[in-house]
């Protein structure tokens, strides 16, 4: 009996819908812009969408079977470009293939300018019970500067409909995305943004700091000296302020970029930070059902080719359970530390396969590397759990994570690659998939 027999099979699925009206100025995702008039079933872009959906359905049908799904996430791109019928048939296909657990979390990412009240009502009727709204900003000038299509009014309307749906009980939860550290932003304008966000009564807020990615309009502007971003001092004050303000409003800072009213943390996203596996479908989507991550091709043609090769030459190996490879202890610590509760190092290293002496001596080495982070209070310990302090530790998390990488590189080979040992450790991942 090896690792593969005790790894937990994935109970989550991510589906990528790459279509957008336009590419936003900061975005480097795998997206396919179709123009402002694009529609899901008829009209401009619909043939592209239909052709893509065919491939997507094909990919789902080629996937190995697994237990019923606890979370499904339709992300993008702009999934709300699809018609409710198109979304419904995707969900139907997933339901037929895997089944859905009772009370499964089914999230749809929505763009404020791409739907109305009826549309929302329809997608709720076909099984969507969580929405993630790409608000980004409440300021019309800022939105235009980001290359977004929606306006302040679109966003306010969308938030009102979502809140009403939640109050009625048609929607279980919803999230609002906000971008921090935008060009020209100062402390008071940021406070104003946060206050407006709180007024929407969204029970979940994702606050991302803008990062300049290669190949984007923003990168080009930055190179030409036309992008005036807040300096580090200001940006760090914004982070501290965000954490304080939202805590007072009853939110838990449960992951570096995510805040939720208790009970509203995204179950799907927690899977990514827990080390458990997930299925992935669609162009550019990453899957990691059995420990190994695999990213699909990012263009339509190469994705098409890849689906064909899946069909005729056999499945990508990371999708096959018998080739399971567990997530390295290093990765589990790196992603686990993003969470409020941090990591239980002893439990993780035991399940990784180290014996007691090894755990004790190797972990001691890590603590030595974390010495100054402890002194500064960036990292803290409660019982067996190690976690980043909020907000200072989280804000400077890279400094802590880098030491994990350096520690891992300094360990003996048979400590980091257990396959070089004669007896393989047995491990159970179940304790990692802890529910909220």
């Amino acid at each position, binding site marked *: 009996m090896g690792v593969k027999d005790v790894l937990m099979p994935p109970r989550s699925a*991510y589906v990528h819908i790459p279509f957008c009206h336009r590419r936003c100025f900061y975005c480097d995702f795998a997206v396919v812009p179709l123009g402002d008039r694009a529609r899901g079933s008829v009209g401009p872009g619909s043939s592209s969408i239909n052709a893509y959906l065919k491939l997507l359905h094909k990919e789902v049908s080629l996937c190995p079977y697994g237990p019923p799904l606890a979370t499904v996430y339709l992300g993008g791109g702009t999934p709300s470009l699809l018609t409710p019928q198109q979304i419904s048939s995707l969900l139907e296909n997933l339901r037929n293939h895997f089944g859905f657990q009772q009370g499964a979390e089914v999230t749809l990412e929505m763009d404020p300018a791409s739907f109305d009240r009826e549309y929302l009502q329809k997608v709720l009727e076909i099984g969507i019970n969580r929405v993630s709204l790409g608000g980004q900003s409440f300021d019309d000038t800022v939105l235009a500067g980001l290359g977004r299509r929606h306006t302040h009014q679109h966003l306010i309307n969308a938030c009102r409909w979502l809140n009403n749906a939640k109050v009625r009980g048609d929607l279980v939860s919803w999230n609002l995305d906000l971008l921090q550290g935008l060009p020209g932003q100062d402390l008071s304008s940021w406070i104003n943004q946060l206050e407006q966000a709180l007024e929407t009564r969204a029970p979940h807020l*994702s606050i*991302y*700091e803008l*990062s300049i990615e290669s190949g984007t309009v923003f990168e080009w502007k930055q190179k030409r000296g036309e992008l005036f971003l807040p300096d*580090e*001092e200001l*940006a*760090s004050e914004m*982070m501290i302020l965000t954490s304080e303000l939202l805590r007072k409003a009853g939110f838990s800072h449960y992951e*570096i*970029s995510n805040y939720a009213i208790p009970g509203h943390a995204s179950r799907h*996203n927690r899977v*990514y*930070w827990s080390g458990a596996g*997930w299925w*992935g479908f669609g162009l*550019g*989507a*990453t*899957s*990691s059902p059995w420990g190994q*991550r695999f*990213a699909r091709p990012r263009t339509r043609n190469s994705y098409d080719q890849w689906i064909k090769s899946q069909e005729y030459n056999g499945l990508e190996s990371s999708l096959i359970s018998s080739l399971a490879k567990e997530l390295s202890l290093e*990765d589990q610590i*790196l*992603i686990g530390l*993003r969470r409020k509760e941090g990591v239980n190092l002893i439990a993780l290293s035991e399940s990784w396969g180290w014996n007691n002496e090894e755990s004790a001596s190797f972990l001691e080495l890590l603590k030595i590397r974390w010495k*100054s982070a402890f002194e*500064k209070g960036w990292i803290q310990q409660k019982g067996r759990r190690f976690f980043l302090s909020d907000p200072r530790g*989280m*804000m*400077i*998390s*890279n*400094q802590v*994570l*880098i030491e994990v*990488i*350096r520690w891992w*590189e300094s360990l003996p080979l048979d400590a980091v690659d257990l396959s070089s040992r004669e007896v393989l450790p047995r491990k159970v991942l179940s304790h990692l998939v802890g529910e909220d």
Partner: protein
Amino acid sequence: MTDVPVSRLRNFCIIAHIDHGKSTLADRLLQETGTVAVREMQEQYLDNMDLERERGITIKLQAARMNYLAADNHQYVLNLIDTPGHVDFSYEVSRSLQACEGALLVVDASQGVEAQTLANVYLALENDLEIIPVLNKVDLPGADPERIKEEIESIIGLDTSEAILCSAKTGLGIKEILQSVVNKIPPPKDEINEPTKALIFDSYYDPYRGVIVYFRIMSGSISIKDKVLLMASQKSYELDEIGIMSPNQSRVSELHSGEVGYIAASIKAVADARVGDTITLLNRPASKPLPGYKEAKPMVFCGLFPTDADQYPDLRDALDKLQLSDAALKYEPETSSAMGFGFRCGFLGLLHMEIVQERLEREYDLDLIVTAPSVVYKVNMINKETIMIDNPSLLPDPQKRDSIEEPYVRIEIYAPNQYNGTLMGLCQERRGEYIDMKYITTDRVTLIYEIPLAEVVTNFFDQMKSRTQGYASMEYHLIGYKANDLVRLDVLINSERADPLTTIVHRDNSYSVGKGLVEKLKELIPRQQFKIPIQASIGSRIIASESISAMRKDVLAKCYGGDISRKKKLLKKQAKGKKRMKAMGKVEVPQDAFMAVLKLN
């Protein structure tokens, strides 16, 4: 090898500027004489080290023996002795020239004579070598052989009426070159009956056979049965092997006066068989060695420290091993409160320093901090003592010293005349004293300056190249010491003195250097978890200061399923950068900060 009489031996070398096509020409000669079959041809056969091939320069010389059927229908043996093409290695060049009777002077038919070439031509003329001018790359569109011929005649005074036009690339002129080597270069003198004297012109370390010594027999003979004596090191050896390079080593039983070959004799380090030393026979030794032997004298010094203190023993072992094959490399342990344990190393010049550093990192997998290069200062103390200082941080306090002298070089720069102004500006900035300016042709000049060596080793060469779009070339040699008003400039990082950043500068420049240095360091040292003051001081007086504010934020925002791998890559890159930093007190200092003084404008 007695099958060819001395009268049919020819020993020659190639003198050329970097890039003028020496190695390609050598390859062609090997091909043409059938010494190396075309299929075995590696590009640039004579340059053995990877580093040489990558940089396109010859560092260690090699040799090759070719058999050539000349126009008179006789078999000739032609020994090509390769020479290194860089100013750092001029002593080695002089020894290999001494091993020859003639030289091919290879000049690029569009670029003309360069400083380095000229220096070597003069060396060759001093050694009485027959020089055959060859104009290379005549196939290129910019080639102007007539103009270059004129240039050679007016600069060197060499008759170019029979200069050979050649293209090593296309093969044009290769046969003529071989024939004129036979016709023009005299055979070695036949001194077979004299006591044996063989000149070592190269040696390298082979981990299995010990040092392999390349030599030219000037008189007498050496056989495999002989016991040899090396006259400078006074060590004697029994021979394991004697042979020729064709160009791969092949064994013979005996070599005679005039011939070029190699021996292996379980010699432990190249320092025991130095270039320029004389090999003689133990039972019939020569009365005195060949002239011209010199100890290698390092001119440039720097500190080498492992970034990770645990690598200190590895660094020591690596230096020990490198020294087996590099007699010019000198080192001794250095301890610095800021840097921990390391070594103070001496090199022939900057290139030599870079090569050693690169070999340590590449071949021995070490992460090193290299401090800015320094020269040897002569310090006259109040108590009449004189001490030599190769490490600026060890300069005695002003109260104890009377004066400081620094080494000066005479530098000759060759460049098209439109760069006169910028080059004179550069020399002046570097405290150079104008000596002379000569027009060598109507549009090319030689500038001659006397300049402190310390100013030359701090990126003078790069500056010269960049200010002249690469058209200038230079040559320098040491002329002696001169007293100057010099001061020690210290750098304090987080209020602690950073020894490796200490420099010795002229008092008049100390403020601008100090200010530039702290500004540069502020740029090069990344923000850390606390505020870091950076100061420059002379004695206890702070002359410039800056500070690096504390890092407050370092975080990867969004991180979902698809992002995890990408984000980890970013973290790994950051971790790698950190690994290459050296902890000085609490501050992590990146490698390039130690070279900050070289990056001032």
